[in-house]
């Protein structure tokens, strides 16, 4: 069965990628010009502390020994200690993952739904005024810096109109009577960042959806369906959509990294306590263990997400499924 083979092949690929990413991650942080140990040592430490830490972390050992230690630590879930927070990096990240996942998933759903709808409308009414305005809209969204869009939305809806809270994922001092009021509070905070990412990411996907649909419209099997007498609506939703979705999955795969990147800047603008904000803070404060750990986690997540998308594609395309 084709899909099993796809899963194994792409699974091995994913594992290899994760391996390479880990190696890259290790070496990246050691290539800093100048003193290679500065990455692991906070500039705030005294000379004595520095020597102790260097020895403790084995940073005075040859590179390959350090690498082995690094792998060992990784496998035991040790991503180092944050300079600033003085806590294990892994804990810091794990605390924030749910927030980022919430933001990414909700905005992703919005992006996909909106892209498909607008792509459909534009392709169906190709050449019309609506189509052209949608294209211009899509291209503009593509050109807009997402964090700036977030900033504008925040400025207008939160600061000027006071409709939404300005920072965070929930109101800290509010005592919640029930789960519902907590969820409502979170959703209230979630709305703006979610819309920012949701709409901001449409640009590329909308254009691809439209192009992919136009490609399919031109295919012979669509003309055949028309010849058979299948009503237009049915053709659109049954025959065309399945085919057009395939390139869409591929494009989503390619843009996953971009979407994740957008989350970093958006979380910063909205002070949304996710992994993105953590990265921003670690950059500002030169908290390298956190930066290294967060980068690793993000990259591994991207590889895994990519792997899942490949499986989904394999499932959707019978040419792959029934090899």
């Amino acid at each position, binding site marked *: 069965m084709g899909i099993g083979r796809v899963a194994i092949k792409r699974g091995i690929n994913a594992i290899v990628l994760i391996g390479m990413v880990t190696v890259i991650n290790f070496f990246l942080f050691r290539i800093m010009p100048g003193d290679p140990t500065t990455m692991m040592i906070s500039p705030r430490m005294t000379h004595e502390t520095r020597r102790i830490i260097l020895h403790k972390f084995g940073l005075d050992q040859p590179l390959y020994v350090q690498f082995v230690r690094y792998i060992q630590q990784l496998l035991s879930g040790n991503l180092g200690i944050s300079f600033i927070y003085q806590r294990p990096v892994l804990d810091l990240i794990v605390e924030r993952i749910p927030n980022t996942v919430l933001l990414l998933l909700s905005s992703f759903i919005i992006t996909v739904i909106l892209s498909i709808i607008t792509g459909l409308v534009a392709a169906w009414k190709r050449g019309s005024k609506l189509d052209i305005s949608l294209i211009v809209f899509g291209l503009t969204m593509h050109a807009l810096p997402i964090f700036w869009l977030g900033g504008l939305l925040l400025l207008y809806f939160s600061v000027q109109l006071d409709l939404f809270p300005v920072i965070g994922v929930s109101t800290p001092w509010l005592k919640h009577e029930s789960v519902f009021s907590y969820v409502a509070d979170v959703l209230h905070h979630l709305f703006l960042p979610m819309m920012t990412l949701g709409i901001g990411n449409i640009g590329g996907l909308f254009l691809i959806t439209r192009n992919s649909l136009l490609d399919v419209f031109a295919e*012979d*099997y669509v003309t*055949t369906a028309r*010849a*058979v*007498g299948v009503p237009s609506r049915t053709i659109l939703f049954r025959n065309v959509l399945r085919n057009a979705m395939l390139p869409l999955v591929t494009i989503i795969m390619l843009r996953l990294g971009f979407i994740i990147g957008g989350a970093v800047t958006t979380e910063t603008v909205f002070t949304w306590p996710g992994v993105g904000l953590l990265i921003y803070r670690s950059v500002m404060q030169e908290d390298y263990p956190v930066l290294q750990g967060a980068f690793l986690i993000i990259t591994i997540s991207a590889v895994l997400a990519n792997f899942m998308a490949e499986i989904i594609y394999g499932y959707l*395309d*019978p040419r792959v499924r*029934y090899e």
Partner: protein
Amino acid sequence: MSFLDIRNLKTYFTTKGGTVKAVDDISLQIEKGDALGLAGESGCGKTTTALTIMHLLPSNAIVLSGKIRFGDVDLLTIGEEKLRKDFRWKRMSMVFQGAMNALNPVFKVGEQITQAILTHEEITKESAWERVEELFSLVGINPARAKEYPHEFSGGMKQRAIIAMSLACDPELVIADEPVTALDVIVQAQILELMRSLRDKLGLSMIMITHDLSVIADTCNKAAIMYAGKIVERADSVTIFKQPEHPYTQGLIANFPSISGEMKPFEPISGSPPNLISPPSGCRFHPRCPYAMGICENKEPEIIELKRGHFVSCHLKRH
């Protein structure tokens, strides 16, 4: 009354470069049970004619004038919705050029045929699948393969599947556009044999569009030769082959190699295909015609019935 009667049909296309006069005033009649071969070079208007009958023209096409009488209705005036429900596929169907791509790769082959059936008939899914299996047997595919996907079928099988699909709703008229061009010779012969036997078995009427005269010789009892959007000669196939009257037809037949006949040198028809946006004046063929006279450049020849059922459009044949 003829089974299908086309009169003075004109279909033009508006393009950036100008108006393409793809079909410029043609007339044809088909009786029930006929197989008419519509022949001519690429771009002479054969496919456009078929698409006009089926009402499947692209958005930049206009049917300027004409009548297509099928049964007791004029197909050009009955409206899209009625056409879709009552005529398309139920009474007339089409086998497209390049059938390889006519099957949607993400659906099972049988499913696409059941879709065709269920669009027009209120029967259960099981009955529809049963019909699919019958159709498969009819066209020579193992019925068990109905649940496979198109990429699992060979080229010849796909063609048979497309033929099966065209027969799904028991049509009276089947239009086949270059049904065997993309296949190798042996498979070609098999498919043509299949089409012949289906025609006999089911009492179908057919229009066979092709640029390959041997296909017409094989399967059609009538033939119409098109050039530059016009029908230049029309008769039963034996006459066309044995006594072609129009210089273009003669040119085509002359180059038709014969296994048993004598060895002849190839005499290609000189010149190149005409520009359909600004076609040659008078008789469209005159720039390439070895017998062209002065009048051919100035006046379009009328259609004359030379003998019963044999129509030619040429100034040379004025009696």
